[in-house]
């Protein structure tokens, strides 16, 4: 049997122990100060935040979100229910587990709508828009999150389609109820990627 030939003399027991402990220590420091903050956002010493490493652990913004983040004054969220009676549209949809659907309003540039929607359970949503000129490649997202309600004012940054994508990630059905008021030109429902025009239906 050929044993690997060691040219270097084996270190003494003491040197080996100190060296191994140093290796462990260096690894522990590198982990705590650099790797864990950068990879997992775990930052017990605060060094990761000071070095700007914890930013690496945050999920990156999509191109759509970056475009949306450059806009100001598009979306103004409100804590209060919308004080309007002149609803132009009301829409209710039930989503099965992991089903997603999209509702878009046709809005002219500068058109301001007040809206509120509420879901019977936590729902993933993405408020986004794209202009008629340029199409979906210029899609912008203004709010990507999960929640049970959203209310406020939306001012169309351009003429195009503006609205929400909702996805139910629970194991039970949920219902989303949306109301909107303002100069809405029309609405389109996107289900499984295919658009269907739908007439606005103001509440009775």
């Amino acid at each position: 049997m050929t044993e690997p030939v060691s040219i270097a003399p084996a270190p003494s027991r003491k040197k080996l122990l100190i060296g191994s402990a140093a290796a462990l220590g260096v690894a522990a420091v590198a982990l705590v100060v650099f790797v864990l903050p950068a990879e997992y956002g775990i930052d017990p010493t605060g060094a990761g935040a000071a070095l700007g490493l914890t930013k690496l652990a945050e999920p990156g913004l999509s191109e759509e979100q970056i475009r949306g983040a450059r806009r100001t004054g598009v979306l103004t969220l409100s804590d209060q229910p919308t004080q309007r009676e002149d609803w132009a549209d009301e829409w209710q949809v039930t989503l099965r587990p992991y089903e997603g659907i999209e509702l878009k309003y046709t809005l002219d540039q500068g058109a301001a709508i007040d809206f509120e929607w509420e879901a019977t359970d936590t729902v993933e949503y993405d408020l986004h828009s794209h202009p008629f000129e340029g199409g979906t490649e210029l899609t912008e997202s203004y709010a990507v999150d999960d929640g049970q309600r959203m209310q406020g004012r939306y001012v169309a940054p351009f003429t195009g389609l503006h609205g929400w994508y909702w996805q139910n990630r629970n194991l039970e059905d949920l219902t989303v109820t949306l109301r909107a008021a303002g100069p809405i030109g029309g609405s389109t429902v996107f289900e499984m990627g295919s658009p269907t025009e739908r007439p606005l239906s103001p509440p009775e």
Partner: protein
Amino acid sequence: MTASPLRPRALLAIGAVLLVLVLFLLAVPAFAHDISDADRAAVAQIKGPAPFAFLYLGAKHMVTGIDHVLFLIGVIFFLYRLRDVVIYVSMFTIGHSLTLLGGVLLNTGANAYIVDAIIGFSVVYKAFENLGGLRKIGLAIDTKLAVLVFGLFHGLGLATKVRDLGLSDDGLLPNLIAFNVGVEVGQVMVLAVVVTLLNLWRATRSFASGAFYVNLALMAGGFALIGYQLTGYFTS
């Protein structure tokens, strides 16, 4: 043999060298090691045999996979005869091929974090063994057998990465074999560089003293990999 305690200055120097090495080594896996989203999206579109695509992915995984590279460096660190290199690398190849092919075909697998933590441990083990540490603590473990066994774990890790690619059943076997061959191609590429550099260094005076510190650096890299993977396991 009398113990030669390390002076503080030497310790400081070791620490600095190890730190730089670890940082350098850790910068790589963070970006390169996991199958990238682009590769995954490309594979998702592949139906049927695509040998060259998988050959490339296998080689890429090996060349950019710092855990496999560190282990290989450890394995061949003190081997200078080509024959020994071939024997030991063959043990590693047999080990990882068995579990790569078996793991994917039988659709069995273990938790990827745990497997990757064991792979990190294989680096620590090999470095410790290189320093004669096992003999010092009274263990006599066959070095070839150890490489074979750790090869099995490296293969399990490879299998989880292949599964992560979302391989289609259509053309599974040829694609898997192509990936495995790619892994060996990548391994030869890594070895060619490492063996050459080590042999150049071995011929110099600094090898005898430097070998100790390089193996400590390997050990530190292994420890860091273990901590990185275990943290992933406990937080996921």
